[in-house]
Structure formats: structure tokens, C-alpha cells
């Protein structure tokens, strides 16, 4: 409907509508502007080393990164590994998170069953209880260790 065809009441209604729309935008805009300092702080670019950025998911959840770094260094990329966990690491969350992050971190190394793996990664577990023989044992600290199986 055009302005010329509109009755005075309709014209008044449209003006009222326009005022409401502009007021809603103004309120939303002012509210958004109050957040700008927070947004700028949150998005402030900061040069972070590649290592720190790569490990950020682990440190974000408070995980000990020594196991991740040691496993990536010592386990060859074409090897397989299995993960065991136990009370040597008391936090259940840490055991689950370390295990989950390890599976992502160690690719292309494949996680397999204990019986068929080249390496065992222990997150507080008991390596001796598996009844396997090892050619190499790397104690990472914090109840965590890596062991290469003797074939």
C-alpha cells in the first residue's frame, strides 16, 4: 500500500512502527557497543609458538603434556600402541582426557589392542600386570610411562 493511498491512521501506524524498529536497533546497537572492549580483549592477536598452540588443547584441560611429547618423540610413526590406565593417576578425568587426547595426538600411530600393539602407553596403569616383556621403558613422571614390547 502506498503512502498516498493510506489513511491518516495507517500513516500514523507506520510512523509508530518505524519508531519502534529504529528504537529496537538503537537499544541493540548500544548494548553491542558496551561489549566492544571485551571483544577486542578476547580477539587481541598474540604471537604464540607453534608448540604452545599445538599443545593448547591439553593445557586448556590441565593435562600433563610430558606424556604426549614423550610418546610422539619415542614411538615411531608407523608403530601401533595400546593404552592402559589405572590408579597411578588418581583423577578419572585426567585418565580419560589423556587417553582421548593421546589418540588424536599420536596419529598416524594407530591405537590397537594390547595383544597386537608395538608399544604400551600407561596412564597410571600397571605395566607388569599385563604379563608382557619389554625392550624399553620410558618413565615420563606423574605415574605415566611408555614401554616398547619385546617381540
Amino acid at each position, binding site marked *: 500500500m502506498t503512502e498516498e493511498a493510506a489513511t491518516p491512521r495507517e500513516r500514523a501506524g507506520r510512523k509508530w512502527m518505524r519508531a519502534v524498529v529504529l528504537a529496537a536497533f538503537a537499544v541493540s546497537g548500544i548494548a553491542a557497543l558496551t561489549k566492544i572492549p571485551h571483544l577486542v580483549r578476547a*580477539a587481541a*592477536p598474540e604471537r604464540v609458538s607453534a608448540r604452545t598452540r599445538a599443545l593448547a588443547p591439553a593445557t586448556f584441560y590441565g593435562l600433563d603434556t610430558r606424556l604426549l611429547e614423550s610418546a610422539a618423540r619415542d614411538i615411531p610413526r608407523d608403530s601401533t600402541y595400546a593404552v592402559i590406565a589405572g590408579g597411578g593417576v588418581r583423577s578419572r578425568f585426567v585418565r580419560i582426557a589423556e587417553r582421548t587426547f593421546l589418540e588424536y595426538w599420536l596419529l598416524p600411530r594407530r591405537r590397537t589392542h594390547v595383544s597386537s600393539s608395538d608399544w604400551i602407553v600407561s596412564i597410571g596403569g600397571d605395566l607388569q600386570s599385563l604379563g608382557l616383556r619389554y625392550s624399553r621403558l620410558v618413565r615420563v613422571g606423574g605415574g605415566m610411562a611408555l614401554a616398547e614390547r619385546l617381540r
Partner: protein
Amino acid sequence: MRVGGPLVFDLLLLGTGQAVLYGIGVVRSRGQALVYAGLALVVGWCALGAAIVYALILGASLEVWQPILLTAALAAGALALGRVIRAGDDTLEGRERGPAQVCAVAAAALVVGYLALLGLHAALTTSPTGWDTWAFWLPRAKAIFSFHGLHPHLQGGFDSFAHPEYPPLVPAIDATVFRFAGDASVLTLPFQDWLLATAFVAAAAAVLRRRVRPAVLWPALCLLVLAPQFGASIGEGYADPELARLIALAAVCGGVWVLERDGRLLAVTGILLVGASLTKREGLGLGLLLAVTLALAARVEGGRGWARALLLVPVLIFAALPWQIWLHVERVAYKPDYSLRTLFHPGYLSGRLGRLGIALERLPRIALSFDHWLLVLPLALLLAFLVIGTRSSLAVLVLGAIGAGYLGLACVYWIGTLPVDWYMRTSASRVVASLVVLAGALTPLVAAELLRGERVSSARLE
């Protein structure tokens, strides 16, 4: 970290998108190619991404030459289509003058400046820290890259991680980025995500500028971009933000189609929704709901061809089918968070009404959270109610899409198998993004229609 390779892949996405837009008649000049560059990148992401997914399903190993070949094939097909399909007219809202121009330029500058800041942050600082990101999204991408394809049943391979049933578009694209980078460099991904987020804003602006004057368009987009959750989600590595942006952009294209019945925009809507349906399981559901809502809105708007939107329903189902067939044929074992079949078991549902109540109460609380989304949703809802008397079709689109999406997401929590408190705590703030971004992206269109009569008559009075 190597950035040259991923940028070459981005050029492939852009080239694919430009070719597809040429094929369906959206882009026919250099000027249009520039204006629609953002839309081209997103459309290319969907089209080439879908082609890569289907190639992986057929056993492709995802060597560098394969995405290049797929790009060439898609471009050749699109260019051939372009010879048959005629280009349509590209209408444009006029330039602003005076205070309106100042308002539009200031808002556009704020959007561009903030997006540039987010880009630097993504390139230098961001790490994908989300739990699901490294529990299964990134491992699946690394597995595709490392083992040269999907290779089901390979111990420690693609389907060894949580939720192997989730559609693989995001891992497939990430794996392709790795292939072009030459290693599984996950630190390149936040910048890739930022590119897509920026392309989404540019695409929405390019499509909306047909009907929305700059003084309304840029402030409205600015409100969405400045929402803390919009920037915070960039580079986290979840699929939800990309799903939200695809659904929102599809709603924008679909919304303009409802008003103009330009078939080119319905085709773009379809491509975006195919991308959404291959991005996440919820993408198919949200896509189907949006397709039906578009048909209803077009019916309310009047005119012919409203039922064409319903053609999107079989298209989306057909697009999602190959992945479901692959899961079935390969007998991939998985334990879904929910099964839609349970919606037809009254006994199962009645015993879990408490879960539905919790979901219905908490989802809006998160979507309306000022700290997450500012006033994006309240503004959209207010405008949608106001437009009921002026342009009911847009009210149907906004309220229908948000309402149906809200009920759909609540149903997921209702029938979900995980403890509802934990389930909502770990996912609700991500999944509601699809509704809020959709609302924010449609806000300029609704506001423009509310202001249109007044502005046209003012011009006449001059």
C-alpha cells in the same frame, strides 16, 4: 606451518563456487564475481566438499590431484549449465546519503575491522581446544589424511573414534587442507574457519543488498558479528558454527526467494542445505525444516511456484543417503546419542517428559543470553512479530524456522540417551547457534520490509 598449500585449496573452493554461481546464472560479470566472492567461497565449500565426501565413500585416497580433478569436473559441468540457463536481473537498493550514509559506513567499517582482528587472532593465536574437536573431529580428519581415505575397520583409523556416524564433510575438508599443506598441520584450520566466517558475512551482505538498504543492512549485520559467541566460535574446531552459518545463509537466500521467486536463489539455498546436511546430523533435520518453512512462507506470500521449495526435501534426503548407505554396507558400529525412531514410541517418550521440560527451558535461556548473543534473538523476534501485519510471509519464515528448529533441538534432548544435564551442558550453547545466527541473518530483511513503505513514500515526497 605451511600456508601456501591451504590457500591454493581455498582458491579451488572459490573457483568451484564461482563456476557454480555462473552455472545457475548468479554471476555473469567480473563485478558480480567480486560482489559474490563470499557466496562463491561458501558455495564452493559445499559443492566441492560434497564431491570429496562422495569420492571418499567410493574409495578415493584424497591425493592432491583428486580435489583438483573434482574441481575441474564441477567447473566444466557448471560452465556447460551456464550456457543453458539465462542470467537474471540483479536488483540493488540505492546508495545512502547524509546521516544514513554515515551510519552504513561506520557499521561496515566496524564489521570489517572486527573481522580483520579475528583473522589475525585466528592466524596467530587460536588453537582448536574444544573437547569434541580433538575427541573425534580432528582425529577423523587426521585419519583420512594419514591412511589415505576412510578405510573402515582399520584399527585406530577413521571409525575408531567417537561418533563415526556423523557426516564427514568437515573432516574431509580438513583432511584436504592437510593434504595441500603437506602435513596434518591443525594450526592452519582456525584461519580456514575464519575465512568461511568472513565469507558468510560477505555472502549475506551480497544477497541481502538486493532488498536491504545499506543503512539497515550493515548495522544489522554488525549486531550479529559483534555477538561474543560469533567470534569465540571461530577456530574452535567444532562443526556447529559452520552448520549455523550454512543454515543462516540458506535462510537468507530462501527468504529473498520467497519475496522475489528468483529460482537462482532457491538453487543456492539447495546447495547450502546439502552442505549443511553433510556437515552434521542435525543439519539434515534443520535443512528439511527450513525447506518446509520456506514453502509455507512462499504460500503465504502468494504467487506461483511456492511448492518448488518442497523439491529441496528429496534433494537433501538424496544427498545424505550415500553416507547412510556406506555406514550400513561397511557395518560401521556406532552408538548414536539419539534415535529418531524413538519419537514413535509413546511409552519411551512419556517416561522422559522431564528431559523435554529441561530442554524447552534451557535452550531459550542460552539463546537469549546477553553474554553469548547480545540482543540478536530478541530483536529478530520483535521484528518478526511487528512484520506480521505488513509482510506475513517473513513472519512465517522467521518464527516458523526458529520455532521449528527450537522444538526439533528440544526433541533431540528429549530422546537422547545421554544424561540430560551433561548433554545440555556440553552441547546446548553450540547447537542453539543455528537458531540465533539464522535469526540475526534474517533481521536485515525483516527490518527493511518494515521500513520499506515509509522510505518509498518519503522518496516520492521528495
